[in-house]
Structures are given as structure tokens and as C-alpha cells.
């Protein structure tokens, strides 16, 4: 039983959050049962809705994967947010101004976004590895800095005056990602992110670098003691995590939009932390965690369109899940009883 403790705790947390959400719906909705059923079944009611869930899970998987790497290496870095945004913008610039053929264009744009993400991500990484500067605060500051710079570029250099709101010029058609499944907006980014997830899993559990990353995250003093150069590991992790977050931003922009139109940080970075939390820092579980999160969001969207309960209910559900899932003591009594039993068995 103990082995599955984390899984059980995750499921119980999610269940409690959903029950609370149902209670809130019951209190404020005129037709609570109908509303709940829209919330629960809406996302799988039509192919288009299923498509919505999948396409929304793509950016969540990218940032979730990026955060998994950082958390797993012991880095409390929440910088995926800013990197996602700025890399999306970089991809947009290339999508607008470069002329290339249909296949090369998105590849170049995504690579450019990913590289920018990696390079920007490594700055807090170096500060941490070399001088032990608090990576949480620096990464949060970077989010705000990148958001400011990005908005400046959008408003002063990319803005299409002919459009009605603050959006960029149109991307060239060659830059957009191809549609994967007709009837939905699911794009080739899905394949890319799944490849990244499998590669990350393999990297983490079957390579030397992944091994070094896990040991450094689990106990840096131990890693040092074993002869692992942890400073180098930390810098490498930041490079890869930034690359992935950046790729996520680029893919999202090219897959879902025809213009760059984020007027503020889109929030996928912090969502990535939630995905990583749900996935228990396991790369393969990121798929399920991201799909779940996308599912309840699409459900909430449906609910707000077809009933009297606003979609922002989701943020309450998410907050509860985070509070419970990362709570060490939650369900600990149960775990302790199991432990005591085992100790008695051993004598």
C-alpha cells in the first residue's frame, strides 16, 4: 500500500477539489445537476471539444515537462512563464518576416524560440550555480522583465495598426503548423511534445546526465560527494528546461494563432508547476496531468457558455489541488499507521 501512497494522495486531492467545485455549483446554479454534467461531460461531447482538450494540453505538456526537469533537479524556478511568452514572440517574428518554404519555416521559428528560451533560462541558472542566488526570486523577476520587453516589441515593432486590437502582423502561411486531425485544431505540435516527453523520460532515467540531474536534485551534497559537478548540472538543466518552455511558446503561437496576440503573460508557466505537481515530477505522467487540467478547463468553458456558472471556477479547483497535493501531512496519519505496522512486522 505504501508504494501507492503518492498516487492515492493525488487522486484524493483531485476528488476533494472536484467535490468542493460541485458544492459551489450546487449553491450558485439554478440547475446544478445539469451544470455539473456539462462541466464533466462537455469536453467529450463532440470531436471538436475533445480536440479542444488535446490542443490545450499541448502547451501545458511543454511547460509541465520543463518544470518537471527543474523541480526534479531541486531548482525552484518558476521562469517557464516568461520564457514561454518571449519565445512565442520570437517565433512570431520569424513567422512574420522570414520567407522560407513550408517545412523549414516552422522548424526555424520553433528552433529560434527554443534557443532564445534556453539562453534566457540559463541566466538564473548560472546565478544559482555560481553564486547561489535564489533562483525562485530571480526567475520571478525574469518573468516580469521578459513580459515588459515582449510587450514593448509587440506594441512598438510588430503591431498591425490595421488590426483592431494589440496584435501583431499576420504570420506567413508557410510558418503555421499543419493540422493533424481534421475537424479539430490539433496541430503537429502534439507529435513534437510527445516526442519530447518520451525523450525526457529516457534522458532522465537512462542517461548519465539524467542520473546526475536526479542525484543533484535529491541531495546536492551527496552528488558533490560522489564527484558530480553539480554547478554544471544545474546550468545544463536550465538550458534544457528553457529550451522546452521556449519550444512550447513557439509551438503554441504557430499552432493556434495567425497573429501574436498575448497582451500579458498567458499563465502557462505557472500551470506548468501545477502539471509537474500532478505528475509527481515524472515525465511520462505529464501527459495525463496536462490532459486532466485541459479537461477541467474546457469543461469550465463549456459550463460558462451553457449555464450560469463562470469558468473561473477552475482556478478555485486548481488552488485546492495544489494546496492538498503538495501537503506532506495530508493523509500522513494513514501512512504512519502503515509504517508502524511494517515496523512491528520487522520486530
Amino acid at each position: 500500500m505504501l508504494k501507492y501512497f503518492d498516487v492515492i494522495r493525488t487522486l484524493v486531492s483531485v476528488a476533494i477539489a472536484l467535490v468542493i467545485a460541485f458544492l459551489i455549483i450546487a449553491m450558485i446554479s439554478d440547475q446544478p445537476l445539469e451544470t455539473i454534467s456539462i462541466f464533466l461531460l462537455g469536453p467529450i461531447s463532440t470531436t471538436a471539444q475533445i480536440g479542444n482538450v488535446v490542443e490545450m494540453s499541448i502547451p501545458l505538456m511543454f511547460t509541465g515537462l520543463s518544470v518537471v526537469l527543474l523541480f526534479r533537479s531541486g531548482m525552484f524556478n518558476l521562469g517557464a512563464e516568461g520564457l514561454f511568452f518571449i519565445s512565442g514572440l520570437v517565433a512570431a517574428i520569424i513567422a512574420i518576416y522570414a520567407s522560407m518554404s513550408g517545412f523549414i519555416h516552422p522548424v526555424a521559428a520553433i528552433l529560434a524560440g527554443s534557443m532564445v528560451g534556453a539562453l534566457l533560462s540559463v541566466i538564473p541558472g548560472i546565478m544559482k550555480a555560481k553564486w547561489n542566488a535564489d533562483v525562485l526570486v530571480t526567475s520571478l523577476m525574469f518573468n516580469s522583465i521578459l513580459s515588459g520587453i515582449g510587450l514593448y516589441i509587440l506594441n512598438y515593432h510588430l503591431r498591425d495598426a490595421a488590426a483592431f486590437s494589440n496584435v501583431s502582423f499576420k504570420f506567413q502561411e508557410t510558418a503555421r503548423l499543419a493540422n493533424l486531425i481534421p475537424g479539430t485544431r490539433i496541430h503537429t505540435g502534439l507529435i513534437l511534445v510527445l516526442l519530447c516527453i518520451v525523450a525526457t523520460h529516457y534522458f532522465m532515467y537512462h542517461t548519465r546526465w539524467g542520473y546526475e540531474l536526479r542525484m543533484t536534485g535529491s541531495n546536492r551534497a551527496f552528488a558533490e560527494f560522489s564527484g558530480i559537478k553539480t554547478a554544471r548540472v544545474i546550468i545544463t538543466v536550465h538550458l534544457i528546461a528553457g529550451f522546452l518552455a521556449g519550444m512550447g511558446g513557439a509551438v503554441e503561437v504557430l499552432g493556434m494563432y495567425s497573429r501574436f496576440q498575448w497582451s500579458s503573460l498567458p499563465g502557462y508557466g505557472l500551470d506548468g508547476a501545477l502539471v509537474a505537481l500532478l505528475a509527481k515530477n515524472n515525465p511520462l505522467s505529464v501527459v495525463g496531468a496536462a490532459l486532466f487540467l485541459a479537461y477541467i478547463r474546457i469543461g469550465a468553458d463549456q459550463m460558462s457558455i451553457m449555464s450560469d456558472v463562470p469558468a473561473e471556477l477552475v482556478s478555485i479547483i486548481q488552488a485546492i489541488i495544489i494546496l492538498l497535493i503538495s501537503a506532506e501531512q495530508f493523509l500522513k496519519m494513514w501512512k504512519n499507521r502503515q509504517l508502524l505496522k511494517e515496523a512491528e512486522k520487522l520486530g
Partner: protein
Amino acid sequence: MRENVLEMRNITKVYQNGVTANRNVDFSLREGEIHALAGENGAGKSTLMKILFGMEAPSDGEILLRGEGVRFQTPQDAIEKGIGMVHQHFMLVPSFTVAENMVLGMEPKRGLGIHYEEAVRMTKALSEKYQLTVDPRAKVESLSVGMKQKVEILKALLRGAKVLILDEPTAVLTPQETEELFKQLLLLKQEGHTIVFISHKLKEVKAICDRITIMRSGTSAGVFNMADVTEQEISRLMVGRDVMLKYDKEESFYGPPVLDVKGLTYVNALDKKALSDIHLSIRTGEIVGIAGVEGNGQAELVKALTGGLDGRVQGSAKVNGSEISNLDIRSIRDLGISYVPEDRMSQGAAKEESISDNIISTRYRSREWNKGLFLKGKSIVSLAEKLIEEFKVRCSGPAQPIGMLSGGNMQKVIVARECSIDPILLIAEQPTRGVDIGAAQLIHQKLLEMRSQNCAILLISADLNEIMELSDTLYVMYGGELVAAFDKPSEVTEEELGLYMLGLKKQQGEHAGRSVTSDAQVL
């Protein structure tokens, strides 16, 4: 017979990681006595006292204070009942003044604020009463260790402590400071205070204690009037030498020196000579032991040999001719040196990772275990399985997180890791601290096995029995120096060693370190 002020009955403590620190321990204190609580490191003394002081909750058992059942859930509960504790690691706030530390949690007030002058006055009055002189306005971070300890004792007294627990108070003191402390303790005893004196220094225990409770691997091994028990009996009960630690050592044929340390000196950041002019040599097939009270330079010596010190090191340390004192740990390990660290939790293992991950940490870089970037998963698992069997590690398999193992089993994994890479030199720092007897024996056997396979071994241990039994050559370290050397350690008496360890005696003439080596070479 005086009445029992305090009784702990049938105390059991199982930590969340499954480690049992106390099992059915009984402990009692009589009014106005100095009661020794003796036992090796990890025997459960500290846990027992933490339970008494409300810092840990017992899993089972009861505490009676003057015949009345009590439950201490926080130190505050214990303090209110007149129990005070002086911890081994001082519980002081460095940036505060002495007076601020004294009144913390019970500040005298004037209006909304703290009445600082009153705090100073209270400190002064108390320090005069008990002849524990301190400067109330000094910042604690600027005080000497002995001073800090006085502040700690005063703190407890200010809070009305009648029962005072001192956790290894002399470990950090100079002999003069220790003597002074003893005088003060006797003074406190006269005033009617009851004192628990935690220590593994038998001489000290004998000198000032009335009774003694001996702890061994989490259980009480007996309670005695000090007059009725000899040091030998205490030590036998503490370490159970009669049960363990008699090994048939094969005759060893020493080869050429592997480690050669010459004139190693290290001045630490406080400008104290932590190592002074160390000469040391270990040959293949030889176990060199270093005995000594902790904090006499052993840690610095190990750091100097494992890349933990930078700068301010003079002299040389060579392994098979190459200088290592300026290398980092990776390069040192690459030379074929293994290291079992003192602290298995902070340095020795990654708790949340699997046993096999913990086993390959020192070898995953070698060609044998990887194909370029990729690790050879199957070979790694079978290596882990082999070592688990060889070292009798009790676990559910190589994939189990190492943190779920008991201390002894965890230590076995660490020793297995360090021994199984065929090192030319193994540095073992307190290799059996806090582990059960079975594990300790297994680890000792393994060290002897390594010795027969011509490994050079440096053993640093505070456990006299272990170090006397295993070492071929034994040094005693005191105040950063090697003050004695013996080439037949098992024939040396503990008493004699103790004299050197406590700095009461020092081998004269030629350098202690050098003389043995040259003697042995003549032999």
C-alpha cells in the same frame, strides 16, 4: 532512598522513516543527583532526552513527574514543569545579545516594548548567583564556545529549571573549561538541582555523576550507582564488546605506501590551527586508525584528503606519488580512492532515490557502466542485486528508495558502494556510527576483507573498540596533532588511549607519526 523526581516508563520511539530510536526504555531521576546517560553515538540518548524535553512525541510509553503522569507536547510544557535542556548544538540566536537570548520567549515588558535594561539586570543577577560570568550586552556571535554554553545554562535556570539536561556538554570544551563546568555543576547540585549528564566520556562520567543509565542500540542496558560499577563494566555495556568485535585478523603483508602525508597543516577561518604538521603513511594491506575525541582535527584531516578544504593548506598528501591536497573530490575519486562519509544522510545517500541509483553514484562514469551517454540499466540492476545479497541488505529490491531502509541497512549500501569499486585507498569515517550490531559486524568483516585484498584503509572512529580491534597502526589525534602512535593497537589499554585522547599525555621525542612508519619499515 531519595524519591524519584522523574520517571520515564517503557518509552518507544519509531521515526517516520521507520527507524526505531528507542525501544521500551525506562529511565528515572532522583532529586538532587547528577545522572549520567551514557551510550555510543546513535544509541538513542538524544532521542530519549528530546522526548523528555517535549521536542519529540514518544510512539509509546509514559512520563511521570513526581508521581504524576505528564505529557510534554512542546518544550514549553517541559519548561513549565521545571525541565531545562542545554543542547549540543547551541540554541542561541547569533545576531541577538546575551540578554536578548536570555529573555527570548519571556521578555520583560515596558509598555508594548521590551524592557531591555531589565533583561540585562536579570542576566547579571543570575550570572552572579551561579558564578557563571557573562557579558549581557555582548552579541552572541562574538562569544567563545564556553561562553555560549554558560549562556545556555543560564537560560535554562532563568526559566526555573530544576531538572537540567546537558547533552554532551564537554564535547566542545577545552580541559580548563570542562573543569570549570564541573565545578559549576556541583554548585548547582548543591542548590538542589537535578542534572542529566549525557556523555560517552567515561572518565568525566565517573568523576561527577552519582548514577548512570547506559543505553545501547535504542534500549536501556542497565542503571547503576556509580560506586557499584567500573568503567570497564560501563564500557562493556555500552558497546557490548563481549558480544562483538573479536576478529581473526590474518597476518598482513604490507606493501609500498599508498598514502603519504607529510607536514600537513591547515589554519581555519578562525585562524586556529586545525591540523598541525601531520605525518602519516598507509601501506597496501594496512588499516591505519585514528582515534580521538571528535572535533580534534579528524574532520579536517578527512576533508584535506577528500577535496573538502581549499586554500590555507600546507604540506603534502600524496597517493601513489600524486599530490591530492589540491584536487577536487572527483579527481581524487578518479585516482581510485573511496570514501565512506561520517554523515550518511547528508552526504552518503540520496534518500528518495533507489538503492541501485545510490550504488552507482561513484562509478556510473566508468565505461563498465555506460555506453557513452547511456547507462547500462541491466548490469546496474544486477550489480545492485549482487551487493544487496553480499551485504545482506534488508530491502524489497534494488528499486526501493534508500531512505526507507533502516540506518544499518542504509550504511551497508554505502559501504557496499565504496568497497565494491576496488579502491586502492579507502577512507572510512565513523563507518558504523548509529547502526545495529549485525550491520557493524558485517561492515568490520568487509573492511578486513578489503585489507587482505591489499587495500590501504584509513579508519577514523570515535568508537575505541572498533578502532583498536581493526587497526594495524593506531594514531591518536588531539588538538589537530597526532599525539601518539601504536603499532600493536589491540594491546593498548583504553585507559592509556584515553590519556592521549584527552590531551593528558603526548608521545615525546621524534614525531609520533613518523616514528611508527620508520619502525615498521625496519621490522
